[in-house]
């Protein structure tokens, strides 16, 4: 029996594991504009990201291939984040000493732009606080999934993958 990858033993993938499967966008590219990064390491029959991409930046020859993004072609439009059935696409953008992460948020309450939220990493640990920059509500999203963009310290760009809205 082949070795079981860690992400299938524990249910989360580390950046090292992820980037051994897909390439990491360059620092230059991350600074230029938002770029979509798929965290989808398994061969599953699924193609909405590829089908919706307006610039054909999602590379997948067979429906069972894992999606890889041509980061130069990606215009950072976030349609893949909105449509992905696995909620597995994220967009990252380096802005000064901050990183902006775009992610799905299918929970209540939906944060408001400007709101401070608790940042969660891939195991649900609180790793800090961040500010919500923009929100696309469900009604306006192409895939019926609300997406939010949150600004975090740049060193957390590859850790934060969910937020918790705490209101008194």
């Amino acid at each position: 029996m082949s070795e079981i990858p860690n992400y299938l033993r524990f249910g989360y993938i580390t950046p090292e594991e992820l980037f051994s499967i897909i390439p990491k966008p360059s620092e230059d590219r991350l600074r230029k504009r938002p770029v979509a990064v798929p965290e989808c390491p398994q061969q599953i029959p699924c193609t909405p990201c590829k089908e919706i991409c307006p610039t054909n930046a999602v590379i997948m020859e067979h429906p069972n291939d894992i999606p890889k993004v041509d980061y130069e072609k990606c215009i950072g439009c976030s349609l893949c984040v909105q449509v992905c059935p696995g909620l597995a696409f994220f967009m990252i953008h380096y802005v000064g000493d901050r990183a902006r992460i775009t992610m799905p948020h299918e929970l209540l309450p939906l944060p408001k732009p400007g709101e401070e939220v608790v940042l969660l990493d891939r195991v649900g640990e609180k790793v800090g606080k961040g500010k919500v920059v923009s929100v696309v509500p469900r009604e306006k999203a192409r895939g019926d999934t609300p997406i939010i963009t949150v600004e975090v310290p740049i060193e957390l760009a590859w850790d934060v993958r969910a937020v918790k809205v705490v209101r008194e």
Partner: protein
Amino acid sequence: MRINEHPILSFKRGREITIYYKGRPIKAYEGETIAAALHAAGIKVLNYSRVRKRPRGLFCAIGKCSSCLMTVNGIPNVRTCITLAEDGMKIEENKPVLPKDIGYKENRKAEKVQADIIVIGGGPAGLMAAINAHDAGAKVVLIDENPMLGGQLVKQTHKFFGKREQFAGIRGIKIAEILEEEVRKRDINVYLETSAVGIFQNGNEKLVVGVRKEKELIEFHGRAVIVATGAMEKTVPFENNDLPGIYGAGAIQTLMNTYGIKPGGRALIVGAGNVGLILAYQLIQAGVEVKAIVEAMPRIGGYFVHAAKVRRLGVPILTRHTILKAEGKERVERAVIAEIDEKWQPIPGTKKEFEVDLIAIAVGLRPSVELLQQAGCQIKYVRELGGHIAIRDEWMETTVRGIFVAGDTAGIEEATTAMLEGKIAGIAAALRLGIADENWIGEIEKAQRDLEEFRSGPFGKHVVEGIKKLLEALQ
């Protein structure tokens, strides 16, 4: 407790009505099942076992098990999970004795319904079978024992995988609406709340005996039958696994996503396949705390992306762990789990307790083949497809000519493949009856190619193996 706010769903409830549980008035809504209304009122013990007097609650919530049988308006053994609440209904614990006089007239004649093709089951497979058989020129009747069409789609709030032409990226609940609309705009005769209880044959004539609302006999006459009766949740042995508060995963989805009823406050999930993982996410969306997902296998069985979704919200996924027992008097109060070794034995010192009022069993499904078996179709045990399966050919026709199968009944898979199989079975049945012209063969071939493509990855491998066994058995 009823859910009022939800990130994905909005619950449209019908008119408020009153039902009586052991004489006590209970608020219910039209369109809600009896079991759902009782749950919303906090009544989770529906019965007591006959000998040991152990409490019994809901388990499958789709009419497949006997856990929710109650006496309703004097009629015993009513499946309260699929029977709609009606104003003034009297609900009691099940008294399994034949009622002497509940006002039926004697010698009532059964209603007779004539069609070319009878489709049993209104889930993704049955709906697609009915639509395609109709479009291929057949007169179709569709029957389902549930009060609504859609099968298990009506509780699938997650977006589907696959290609967009096969509804990928669309939530299952929405797909149910789309398919129902397609059926309604066609001349397809739909019978809801109608259970198929037997298939009989006279030459090429097929008779499906149906019972509507537990009391009205209907004869469906046709020349072909498509059986798309779905599947039934499996369970696992552990101490007290019959306590109320322990449900098949699908039952929790039904309560929470279809009827908007919060099934509990704190949950443990057994099984990290797609169903268990998806359920964990849906529980969080409904405001339920998920303590952990335990999985006996050394790896997560479902799609990693589903696991990642709940892991990043803080839910531990414990592979190589199992549930040892549930504790509680009238209902679940606690779950005890432990790590297991390579021989599946609990490792001493690894026991953990969780205070939970909800345990979801998500350990797989087995096909509902009873009707096919009764009709004389040849059955084979195929582990890769979930258990006993009717042997069938590439057109989904069983060993009894004119009886077809599709969806989970034909082997446990995805809703996407169920829809493709339904399409094949619907067209194939119309072709076999000489109704459809040969151009329709191209449509079957296209669906077959789509199936092959969908199953070509690592997740489809075992299904392909299983189907090979079925086709070999035909030789």
